[in-house]
């Protein structure tokens, strides 16, 4: 019962098969989008969000988004455009020991840069403490804030959010 329909959580095995998820080699090379979209639903704003044409949804409207990870430079513009909030950004080798992970965050209160936060995985359970590196919410994001946290490197493909209210207000 690993199918996402049963748990609501993507496991690593299924993730590795998704055409929107970059491979391990690409993660080493710099920031990159990670499109965790596993069901053929009629939706394609991610395609138009990418200024470099790195995301394709073909054929039709329901194919899984495909990421050309060579074209993607991890700018993060697609994150807030995904109505399913399922695009993340991973900069694995930010420092020797830490990575940056960016994710959409639509809850109040919003975190601030420098906050020490409780970072959680796809199941919402606590994984590690992290530091808020960036909080972006320009008008173009239409109220979907994109939060970037700095976390120990081993969590770069598991941390996907912060726990609600899990930071110093």
């Amino acid at each position, binding site marked *: 019962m690993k*199918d*996402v*329909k*049963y*748990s*609501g*959580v*993507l496991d690593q095995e299924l993730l590795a098969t998704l055409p929107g998820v970059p491979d391990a080699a690409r993660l080493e090379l710099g920031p990159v989008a990670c499109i*965790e*979209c*596993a*069901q*053929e*639903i*009629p*939706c*394609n*704003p991610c395609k*138009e*969000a990418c200024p470099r044409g790195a995301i394709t949804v073909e054929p*039709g*409207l*329901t194919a899984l988004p495909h990421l050309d990870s060579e074209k993607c430079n991890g700018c993060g513009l697609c994150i807030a*455009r*995904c*109505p*399913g*909030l*399922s695009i993340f950004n991973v900069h694995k080798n930010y420092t020797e020991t830490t990575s940056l992970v960016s994710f959409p965050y*639509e*809850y*109040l209160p919003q975190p601030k840069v420098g906050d020490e936060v409780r970072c*959680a*995985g*796809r*199941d*919402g*359970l606590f994984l590690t403490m992290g530091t808020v590196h960036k909080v972006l919410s320009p008008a173009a994001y*239409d*109220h*979907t804030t994109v939060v970037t946290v700095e976390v120990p490197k081993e969590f770069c493909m598991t941390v*996907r*959010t912060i*726990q*609600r209210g899990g930071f110093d207000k």
Partner: protein
Amino acid sequence: MNNNLIVIVGAGPAGLSAAIQAAEAGAKVVLIDENQKPGGQLFKQIHKFFGSRAHKAGVRGVDIGRQLLEETESQGVEVHLGYPVYGVYPDGRVVYGSAEGVRSIQADRVILATGAIENNLCFEGSTLPGVMTAGAAQTMINEHRVLPGKNVVMIGSGNVGLIISYQLMQAGATVRALVEAAPAIGGYAVHAAKLKRSAVPIYLSHTVNRVWGDGKVEKVELIALDEHFNKIEGTEEVLDADTVCMAVGLTPMVELASLAGCRLTENGTLGGMVPLHDENMRTSNPIYYVAGDIAGVEEASTAIEEGRLAGIAAAESLGLSNEKTAEKKQAVRDNLAALRSGAFGQRRFLAKEEMVKEFYREAEV
């Protein structure tokens, strides 16, 4: 007559879209809604919509509502709010309540865009304050800015249950459990994933057994279900919660279509009894058209497209067409086909196709 008057009942996404298209084609359009505000459920939809640019994907429902309202106004549509439509006659006479009493209006065409009503569940304690439909909770948080409770149990894992659970958390509540009788999540995985990232427990093959408390919901007892949806004794689990929301499907509101003599058909995929319609959204009574959830429960984006199609086609049937009409209708049909593609949309696509076939079979009899 010959005023080319089209009366539209219901100012939700389907009705507004129909009004815009019919007016643009040159019809005189009167739009009537029993609510004080237009937009139907659109102004409660604070999430970004799916689809493509043609379907306004990535735009929040509330902003799509604003755009439709502006277009409706700029097209010179006459809008009557707070006026319930009590009845319709097969010849196109529409009877409604107004500040001056009951009135009627003779239409050349009527487009029924009355929407759907939420289903309920009955269980021990389901009449206690704190038990409500998911849509009611959404109205409270997103329109009235009132939190119905702090600890919520949501019944139903379709997109309505998933999205409203998320919005309740955005409003500050905790979702203690998402309960689904089926063995799998019904709605989109991306919506479920949002709940999981906030650690919402999802109980598949479970239902609410009973609810109790001192004059209001305080305790909610869940129970596991077997593959035949029978309760499994001994699996009860009690949660502390003050709110139970039901997102267990919708039923099309077909009363007016029935009064107008439109032939109805039973279609489980589309939500129950629905008026038969052809590929132009025209019913078996050629004066009457339908669009949106009344014609089969789907989504706001499909309602918008069906409304547009009904508006164009109703005007066309009054002779209000030009060389672009066929092209416009085809573009709308292409949009609808795109929205009904993929694993989730396929069943609705086939159900709608079957409905059009049935329409013509019935017409031959």
